[in-house]
């Protein structure tokens, strides 16, 4: 008996002769397209933004390699834009950084409100490479562009009553959506003792990798105090106030047992909930071990003298 089975291959499935003739070229093209879609190595973001006229200051450089632009600009603690590390990069676009006014007030002979450009005009921008150590026990190496804080403050001639300097961040929930939720008492406030503020290591930063500071890194003006935990390095500064009394600071108000005024990097003094003996260096790779924390974040030679006689455990 003949059992007729329909042919397995339908005529419509037969490859057209033109395609068959060009098959090698078509395959090569498809492979090329696929290869272009997949990055061979992880594509890292390159520095972007206006280039600043800055010069490297060779006194402030490190043997360690600076962290990548991508790491520095996508891993941020900036609760004004959300409490996740990725939130500031995603949300900081709403901040208008020009025009920007900084108000100087308090115990000083010269006070007033200044446009950012006027505040910085007399000073030469420097490239400085600093270690940054977060209280959460991770660290980076950041190539800042800035000016020495002390040089700026001296122009306002603080009086003998000026024992401390207080800094305040912008308070505008319309521009800073994280401020709609009072995880911290807004505006963010920080402060330094006057001798800490006058120390040559402390800078006001306006740039990163030779370019204008991205919003998520504290644009347009931020403090960098590299021997202290990162939360002392206040961002988006609008007010500088000379005062006689130790000023209240945001993290100390939020959790006084965990965050102090001085916040000097100190492997001997643990955070109540985690150890400060070691730190994870960002960008080091998944299996690289943690590194030992350095006293004063490696700046002990320059700043330890500021604290001689001070009990650093009680004044954490």
């Amino acid at each position, binding site marked *: 008996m003949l059992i007729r089975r329909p042919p397995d291959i339908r005529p419509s499935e037969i490859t057209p002769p033109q395609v068959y003739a060009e098959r090698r070229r078509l395959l090569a093209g498809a492979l090329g397209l696929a290869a272009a879609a997949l990055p061979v190595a992880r594509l890292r973001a390159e520095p972007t933004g206006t280039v600043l006229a800055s010069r490297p200051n060779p006194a402030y450089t490190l043997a360690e390699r600076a962290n990548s632009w991508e790491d520095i600009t996508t891993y941020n603690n900036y609760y004004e834009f959300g409490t996740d590390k990725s939130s500031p990069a995603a949300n900081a676009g709403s901040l208008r950084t020009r025009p920007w006014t900084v108000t100087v007030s308090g115990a000083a002979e010269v006070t007033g409100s200044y446009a950012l450009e006027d505040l910085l005009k007399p000073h030469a921008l420097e490239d400085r490479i600093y270690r940054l150590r977060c209280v959460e026990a991770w660290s980076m190496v950041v190539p800042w562009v800035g000016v020495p804080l002390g040089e700026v403050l001296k122009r306002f001639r603080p009086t003998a009553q000026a024992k401390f300097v207080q800094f305040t961040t912008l308070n505008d929930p319309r521009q800073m959506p994280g401020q709609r939720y009072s995880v911290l008492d807004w505006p963010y406030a920080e402060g330094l003792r006057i001798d800490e503020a006058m120390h040559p290591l402390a800078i006001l930063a306006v740039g990163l990798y030779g370019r204008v500071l991205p919003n998520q890194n504290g644009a347009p003006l931020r403090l960098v105090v590299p021997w202290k935990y990162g939360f002392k390095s206040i961002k988006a500064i609008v007010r500088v106030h000379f005062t006689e009394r130790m000023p209240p600071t945001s993290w100390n108000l*939020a959790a006084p047992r965990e965050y102090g005024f001085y916040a000097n990097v100190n492997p001997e003094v643990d955070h109540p*909930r985690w150890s400060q003996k070691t730190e994870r260096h960002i960008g080091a790779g998944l299996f690289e071990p943690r590194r030992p924390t350095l006293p004063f974040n490696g700046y002990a030679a320059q700043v330890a003298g500021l604290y001689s006689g001070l009990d650093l455990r009680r004044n954490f």
Partner: protein
Amino acid sequence: MAGSTLGANPVDEITDTLGKWGLRLLLLTLAITPLRQLTDWPHWQRFRRMLGLFAFFYVALHFAMYLAVDQSFAWSVLWEDVSKRPWVTLGFAALVLLVPLAVTSTRGWMRRLGRRWQRLHYAVYVATALGCWHYYWQVKLDVRSPLLYVAAFALLMGWRLWRRAARRQVAPPAPGNPVRGPAAGLRPAAILPKLRLPRAADSQ
């Protein structure tokens, strides 16, 4: 490729994700019984053991990530963290509590332990509570996310408490009246709309 990387701190990212999923899976495991009771569909139960074991797997990996990759097997650090930092103590206790539950998850053990099996496995309530507390206490300042987990846990436990209270409330039937069974009128399935779910026979 943007969005598909682990970010600048992959160690923390992986550890946190494993912990969060461990806790979510525990909560999912605890949701099985209420789902079964709400919908009168018994087949949810089939997934409970698998979910529970997955939860244990993720919690164990979370701990392994911390010990092996973050701390590079620094046993002194583990000892210090578990003994000096209460939130780590709680997390470690939760892990330890889940171990016997994972071991006795098999049918063989259910047979061997009989009624005691159920009593042992009530420890999953404690382990989940400890997990939520561990997460809440670990967070730096923004407690919104851990509070969501606490709320979910409270909901799942509240359901159980409600059922228990409802069962106790019914008075014994008067002589001559038909016996309706404990809390028949208060049964959730009677109050809430019933979901039309396929029976085993339907799925041919």
